[in-house]
């Protein structure tokens, strides 16, 4: 069994703000990340897929197909966007990296078969770094 991992990046802005909390509570909880004007990151995302080798091509994953799928599902809707304003899921939900990871993983998982209709390869995990020092990872079995 092989695991093929591809790294992508996108840049986006966000503001961490939980609508259930008061302005003051949000300031205390999120600090600088609660700045009303927002701020941005260069997100780096790794998508891992798992599968056996296709004996014909010598590959476990067609990376061109994966690239096109990730571009459509994630990069186009997220790159150079304001997550709070441009992505429906974050209207009323704080776009923390945890919530961003859940949203991206769900999009990839839900639509995976449109790119890879066979039994293999399968989505194995998604990993996002908000900065090089903050890394978040989810395996496919955790995706609801």
């Amino acid at each position: 069994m092989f695991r093929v991992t591809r790294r992508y990046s996108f840049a986006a802005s966000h503001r961490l703000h939980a609508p259930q909390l008061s302005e003051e509570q949000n300031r205390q909880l999120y600090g600088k990340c609660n700045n009303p004007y927002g701020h941005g990151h260069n997100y780096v995302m790794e998508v891992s897929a798992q599968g056996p080798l296709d004996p014909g091509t010598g590959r476990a994953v067609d990376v061109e197909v994966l690239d096109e799928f990730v571009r459509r599902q994630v990069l186009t809707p997220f790159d150079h966007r304001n997550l709070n304003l441009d992505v429906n899921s974050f209207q009323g939900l704080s776009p923390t990296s945890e919530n961003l990871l859940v949203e991206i993983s769900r999009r990839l998982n839900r639509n995976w078969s449109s790119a890879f209709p066979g039994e293999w390869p399968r989505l194995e995990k998604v990993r996002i770094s908000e900065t090089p020092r903050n890394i978040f990872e989810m395996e496919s079995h955790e995706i609801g």
Partner: protein
Amino acid sequence: MLITRRVEFSASHICRQPQLSAEENARIYGQAANPHGHGHNYVVEVTLEGLPDPVTGMVLDLKELKEILNREVVTPYDHRFLNYEVAPFDRVVPTTENIARDIWDRLKPHVCGPSHQLRAVRVYETPDLYVDYFGEQPCSV
């Protein structure tokens, strides 16, 4: 515990199946099917699993692992055209997956001991694309 050693080599390759036409290969492998070849700075991470020896405090002396990696991987692969100079790539397409499996096969006889075994081979073709291979069966002593 896991221990990992990293080595690098640079090599050129062509991704193509000899029985297919140039057009078919270009459709499957894209730019990687360029008949003149192209190259990468490959990075290989080899991970062993084991317990530290109670006397030496080491799973496997990393100096020894470094020598094995240089002898079995870097020397045959570095600054070579894989399709023409490195078996089995005269008959096996040198995709990142097949390179990871070949490195696993080359290392397995040398890094399986009573106290440690080969756990994973990771091959980076570029910093943005890598493959992990875990073998089809655990290595036996």
